[in-house]
């Protein structure tokens, strides 16, 4: 399956993490997670509901901007995606800036709903294609949302995994540490060590991230490419040559 593009590998890998869920929401500016959710939906025979923010067709909300958050707080969303300008080894995420707040040297757009959804949605998948020690740092400069919380804080949700352009990490809430789950084809553990600013665990032998089978790939390139093109035409054109 050497002709599998990196984006397709990520879509398939993330889709596998969503199997069996009832409702997955995807924030704005998230074409790969969005395509992954649509792929899982396609394979679920309609059992999975997807709310793709920014899409007219694939969102069912009718109560304004607050509905996503109310829905999450009521436990009606099983999985969501967050990124971060910085992500550290305890899964703290920084969407605000680098340097001393408020006059940060580098400024990111802002925390959006992370300081809420990260607490309330059971399976939050951290997704950031750029895997460098600039992004994956020992300690974030600003905690938009913490990876874990003290026992008395109401927190049914939190980090499930971290997916990058090089690998997949699982997160252990008890240990507050990431464990390397798999390395994408063409990348190595050594390379990941060098490009990750935080310490992490790993098994004796690290498997390769599985590439999607022919059927999955056909589904991604066909129906999913068409569906995601409504919201992300540029992405769909670039990856699937479909717009």
């Amino acid at each position, binding site marked *: 399956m050497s002709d599998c593009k990196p984006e397709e590998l990520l879509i398939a890998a993330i889709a596998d993490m969503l199997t069996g869920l009832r409702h997955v929401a995807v924030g*704005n*500016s998230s074409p790969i997670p969005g395509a992954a959710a649509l792929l899982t939906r396609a394979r679920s025979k309609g059992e999975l509901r997807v709310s793709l923010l*920014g899409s*007219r067709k694939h969102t069912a*909300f*009718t*109560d*304004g*901007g*607050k*509905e*996503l*958050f109310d829905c999450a*707080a009521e436990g009606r969303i099983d999985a969501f995606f967050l990124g971060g300008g910085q992500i550290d080894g305890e899964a703290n995420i920084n*969407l*605000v*800036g680098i340097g001393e*707040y*408020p*006059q*940060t*040297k580098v*400024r*990111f*757009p*802002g*925390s*959006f*709903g*992370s*300081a*809420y*959804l*990260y*607490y*309330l949605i059971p399976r939050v998948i951290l997704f950031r294609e750029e895997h460098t020690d600039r992004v994956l740092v020992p300690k974030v400069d*600003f*905690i*938009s*949302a*913490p990876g874990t*919380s*003290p026992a*008395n*804080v*109401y927190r049914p949700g939190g980090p499930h995994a971290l997916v990058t352009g090089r690998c997949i990490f699982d997160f252990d809430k008890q240990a507050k540490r990431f464990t390397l789950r798999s390395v994408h084809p063409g990348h190595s553990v050594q390379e990941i060590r060098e490009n990750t600013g935080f310490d992490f665990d790993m098994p004796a032998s690290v498997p390769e991230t599985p590439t999607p089978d022919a059927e999955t790939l056909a589904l991604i390139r066909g129906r999913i490419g068409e569906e995601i093109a409504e919201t992300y035409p*540029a992405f769909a054109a670039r990856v699937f040559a479909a717009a």
Partner: protein
Amino acid sequence: MVFTSHEIEQIAARIPDGAKIALPPDYSGCAMAVIRALIRRGAKNLHIVGVPSVGLQGDMLIGAGCVATLETAAVTMGELGIAPRFINAAKQGSIKLLDGTCPAIHAGLQAAEKGIPYMPLRGILGSDLLEHRDDWKRGENPFGEDDPLVLIPAIKPDVALFHVAKADRKGNAWIGVRRELMLMAHAAKQTFITAEEIVEEDLLADEIVAAGTIPGLYVTAVAEAKQGAWPVGLGGRYAPDAAHIAQYYEQARSDDGFQRYLADHVYAPKAAE
């Protein structure tokens, strides 16, 4: 009474310096024509509330020196990445930042809508946002044990400003599923609206339409503004002018470029209006 015969400049004139002004994100109906008029009239010391984030509106007002305080969950120009004038102002420390999170902004507006002083909220604890927000408080759940909460004070904007597809002569404004605009209108002391068209029929007369309509009860004034959201889009009507926004993004990366943009597209003889 709601006035529906206002001009864009009149709306801008009725939004005073120092006003706390609630603005929607780029996808939810932006009264861009009024934003340009605010810059033309040299508005000062605005306190922007992004509901829950802002895009081009915020970046332009910040760049033009109209903003003292920015309360928002984010400033974003979508796919293009970061808003250049906002980034510059943040680095310079030239505006006061009240970094928030989307549900807290919605909750604060809902508290204002309900006339209650605050709304308790989950999440947020352990976020550095809380460390920097002197206006937020920690609280306990009086119905539970050792169950900390965050208490978000009501956000009562002086002004809500947005653009819709349709309004009628009574000031009723159709917003469809964009209920955050209704929340803004309910929460704000005054609501100014621009509309693609002002129609003669009563938008509340038919229940199917009424279900997506803000009653004129909450509306201070409406002005007609064809392509009033340009260069951002208006859902169901027109797409964003991607080429123009890309041009803005390039120009706004430098002080000079931004000034040229203002000269060409804001101060120039109402090219856009």
